[in-house]
């Protein structure tokens, strides 16, 4: 079944405590190559038949109303992916 991916990330100017906790933990397990970490969400919406423009529009609507909180998050992607693709 085709899937639509929605990526949601904390707005850059907003504190991301989750990313901060991870960034603090990485060096402790010996991984020192990273300057920062942000943690967001990835949603996969499965579609029963073909992904029509109307369904894509529904996904965009879901992304901004239900899947993200526009006060603190940005929707960074709404996109159809092929089976097993990214």
């Amino acid at each position, binding site marked *: 079944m085709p899937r639509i991916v929605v990526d949601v990330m904390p707005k850059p100017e907003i504190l*991301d405590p989750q990313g901060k906790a991870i960034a603090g933990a990485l060096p402790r397990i010996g991984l020192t190559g990273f300057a920062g970490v942000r943690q967001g969400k990835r949603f996969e919406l499965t579609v029963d038949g073909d992904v029509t423009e109307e369904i894509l529009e529904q996904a965009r609507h879901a992304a901004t109303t239900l899947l993200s909180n526009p006060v603190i998050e940005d929707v960074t992607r709404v996109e159809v992916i092929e089976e097993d693709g990214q």
Partner: protein
Amino acid sequence: MTAQTTSRTFNIDTVANAEATPGQALPWAELGLKENEYRRVEEILGRRPTAAELAMYSVMWSEHCSYKSSKVHLRQFGEKVTEAMKEHLLVGIGENAGVVDIGDGWAVTFKVESHNHPSFVEPYQGAATGVGGIVRDIISMGARPVAVMDPLRFGAIDHPDTARLVHGIVAGIGGYGNSLGLPNIGGEVVFDAVYQGNPLVNALAVGVLRHEDIRLANASGAGNRVVLFGARTGGDGIGGASVLASESFDSSKPSKRPAVQVGDPFAEKVLIECCLELFKASVVEGIQDLGAAGISCATSELASNGDGGMHVELTNVLLRDPSLTPGEILMSESQERMMAVVTPENVAAFEAIMDTWAVEYSWLGEVTDTGRLIIEWDGEKIVDVDPRIVAHEGPVYERPYHRPVWLDGVQADAFTASPAAERPADLREAVLDLMASPNMCAKNWVTDQFDRYVQGNTALAMPDDAGVVRVDEETGLGIAISTDANGRYSYLNPYEGARLALAEAYRNVATSGAEPLAVTDCLNFGSPEDPEVMWQFAETVRGLADACQELGVPVTGGNVSLYNQTGGVAIHPTPVVGVLGVFDDVARRTPSGWREDGQAIYLLGT
């Protein structure tokens, strides 16, 4: 972990520049200052303020920080206190929170504060950071926080926006409080359409300490070092102040400034433990949490409560967002930060404790004997003020007030005066309606989302009328707290409403078996510029102060929240009153409700 500083070159507005360019226009109106207030700043300084000074004055002289409309009334809380009422008071009104002696060398500090507007904008984070802020107030007195409570008011339960607010706010209070390991021992949930566009999120925290551990927010002793520790400073809560970005004249566009703050309860939990270790090791002389007005407030209050001045190098502040301008850094409301004063001998011990808990810190400057608060940016003076005037001598208004013309009509419209009171059928319906009201039904759908067990000292919590926690495990010494308010009573008669709120909280504490000792309050009202609202406020304070005197319990601290209104319509006056009581042994506490068959029922009182 030490501070690597961010030194950036802005074309900054220095004191010298301000002297040289007296005619430069500044965005004082956008920052919320009134013309007369701005003129007074100019007069005090003998020149125009710098952009950074303007930032400080505008936040410190805001209603929220300066209590400019409420001060003249709040004085009654001090004036109506008798010597007998002060018997148990170790620290009274004016500090971050009052401190009450509960015997055996133990003391308790407690306070209730509002986070109404941020919670309407972003319910989860607004409520969460409300809990975070009040808990830091308690820590900064030298206490270990031991419990929280959350009196809440929402709009009509069937309004389409209410679910967003209720679920977000309740989850935010739980999300933050639960993660701090603080039992939630009570609160209120009230639905009323008057709070639709303006929910009330009040949060109370209580902490315990030994008498000798009391810490105050003052910076004394020239040569002592000033340190900022905890989270980094970001652009949080200065969204509306982006006009200040004009103070940076570099070509890069300033990044966006979030008006909402996101809380990091983990950072705060670490901060609590870290502060308690600092207190135990006696390495801080004075300490202050950073809340509204951030560094502006912390530096000016610490300096003004001390005996001298303070010198601060602002480029030492650790930043989350490197594009912040000096004025924005001074105004930032980033959460989970504290400022402390440390003697030079204790610097190493202080740093060792920070490192144990992996808390970031940076040394900002030192206490001086100049009597001035001097803030520099890369060695250039951008603030040169008298901290006392900034922190404590802001504008004070005697706002006009008068009894609302509509009040007689509202008061006359009583249930007993209506024919319905005589018709039993309707009365039955009225009783059933009351019982089915969302304000009367069980609240466990809220309270089950809060941890009431953590710390192992909770002797009573929901569904009881007062929360009870043990303070001393050996003796059973403990405390009871209840918060109450009834906006409808206060709407009908603010003087009596305030007295009734106190009486209810007092009764709840007394019936749990504790002896009531002290009061905190959060006064939630509409705009003080509306004379009818101002009258409600004046009457409320008069009523509360009188009732405190009659019952013999002093107000030890609290908070005023004004401008709670939507489209010109104010909320009901809502004075949330918290009463603290003491138990010699919490084993004696009495729960609410009947628990055994066959017991006799008495109705006491009038």
